[in-house]
Each structure stands twice: as C-alpha cells, then as structure tokens.
C-alpha cells in the first residue's frame, strides 16, 4: 500500500497533480451553482418588490 502512495518516489508530484485536477473541477462545479442560487434569490426579491409596487398602485 505504501508503495502505491510512494509512486516510485514521485508520489508528491503525481498526487499533487491529481489533487489540483480534482480541486479545480470541484471549483468549476460549485461556481455556477452558487451563481444560480444567488440569481434566483435576487430575482425573487425583485419580483416581490415589483408586485408590491403594482399592488400599491392599483
């Protein structure tokens, strides 16, 4: 098992590369989701404000 992690002595290089890859993709996954939730809540607020303005005017 240890031999596997050591990767013939190059463990640090191999594992850090794979780690960078995975972390980068996780960030790429999270970014649009965060933006989506933000947009939804922002638009929700905008619509409720619009609706209340319309009701006041009516």
């Amino acid at each position, binding site marked *: 098992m240890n031999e596997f992690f050591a990767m013939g*002595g*190059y463990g640090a290089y*191999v594992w850090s*590369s794979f780690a960078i890859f995975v972390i980068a*993709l996780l960030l790429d996954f999270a970014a649009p989701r965060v933006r989506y939730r933000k947009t939804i809540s922002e*638009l929700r607020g905008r619509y409720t404000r619009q609706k209340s303005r319309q009701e006041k005017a009516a």
Partner: protein
Amino acid sequence: MNKLTLWFHKFGSPPIFHRIAGLLMPWLYGTAVLGGILAMYGGLFVAPADYQQSDAYRIIFVHVPCAWMSMFAYLFMAVNAFIALVWRIKISEILAMASAPIGAIFTAVTLLTGSIWGKPMWGTWWTWDARLTSELVLLFLFLGVIGLYNAIEDRRQAARAAAFLALVGVVNVPIVHFSVNWWNTLHQGSTVRLLGPSRIDSSMLWPLLLMALATHLWFFASVLARARVSTLELEAGKDWARNVVLNERTSHE
C-alpha cells in the same frame, strides 16, 4: 426552413434551453464523474509503470486530457463567437462566454500539472519553449475574453466585443497544437493520433482516452450550467423567467 434550422431555432429559445439544459446537466456530470473515476483507476492501478519515467508518467492521465480540453474549449468558444458575431444569435453569445472560464481552468490545470511533471523529468518547473509559451498565451487569451466581457456594461455588446477578441486569438490554437512539430521543443512530440496507430501502449491508452471522454462530458455539463444561469439573468424581465424563479421556490425549499 429545413428541420435542422428549425431544431436549432427551438434550442435557441431561452425557456426551452433552460429546461433541456437542466435535464441534461445531471446526466452529463454523472457520466463524466463515473468515467473520470474509472479512468483514474485505470491510470493509477492498472497501467504498468513506464520503463523510462517510472510512476511519474501517470500525471499524463490528467495533464493531457486537460491540454486537449483547453484547445477544445477555445475552439468551441471561437465557433460560437463566430456565430454570435455573424448571425447575432443570443444563445451563441451565451455559450461562447460560458466556455471561457472553463477553458481558463483547463488551461491553468494543464500548465500547473505540466510544470509539476516537468520538475522531476526535465529538472525544471518551467521553460520558455514553443508549446509551453503558446499554452500560456492561450491562458492570457481566455483571461482577456473574460476580462473584456466583464468590463462592458451592456451584456450583448460585451459578448460581441469579447467574441471578437476570441476570434482574433483563435490563431493561437493551431500554434499550440503544432508547436512540437514546427519548433525544437523540450516538450515531447505527439504520441496519440486521430488516424492511424498511436505510439503508446494500449494499457496506457484506454485510461487516457476514457479521461479525455470524461473531461469532454464535464465540459459540456459545465458550459450548460453556466449558460443556464446566464440565460436566466439576461431574460430576467420575461414571463418564463419569472415562472422559473417562482417555481424554484416551491420545489427547492
């Protein structure tokens, strides 16, 4: 109007795009992750150690697919940029701008993993040879497109300006690809070929190709995810957007 243009027209309609993208996304992400895990298993466990580079070569299973994706992402962006500029199709503007951040990420990972691989193999973190330099230029091009898009207020004009920049820079993609053939570089030449046999052992080839497939699927999933948010933002005043936003509340909370 033939069937293809009709289909494209329908797909380009924002509410339909929003719905279809939402349906496709989980499948694309899922298969991408599955493929990626299988590929990593193949690359780390099944493939034997290289006789020259021992186990360090395994970085190839991450570095090369990312490099391929960095070029694919730019070409995808450039094609959509062209459509956006010539035919002013809104969905193409959105897709072009959505592929820039993903392309930048793949390019950055390519450069970083390549640098890490270079240290034990070449003895240096960096060298200014043709391939590395042109890949770095590719990263700057992506960042430029993103920067320009964010700097202009009007979203459609911003997309058109950034699309124009993307097209101006597309000449760099063949430079990156053919750099190892055209110049004497430290970076090794191509071993995987599209047509004809590849100069790489099959036990190493399948994880590589599988990871390439997985990253492609991930790319499309990510593009759709970002494009979906952008369509919602840009169409905020329309009724369909309002319906989507209000329905989200009931299904997610």
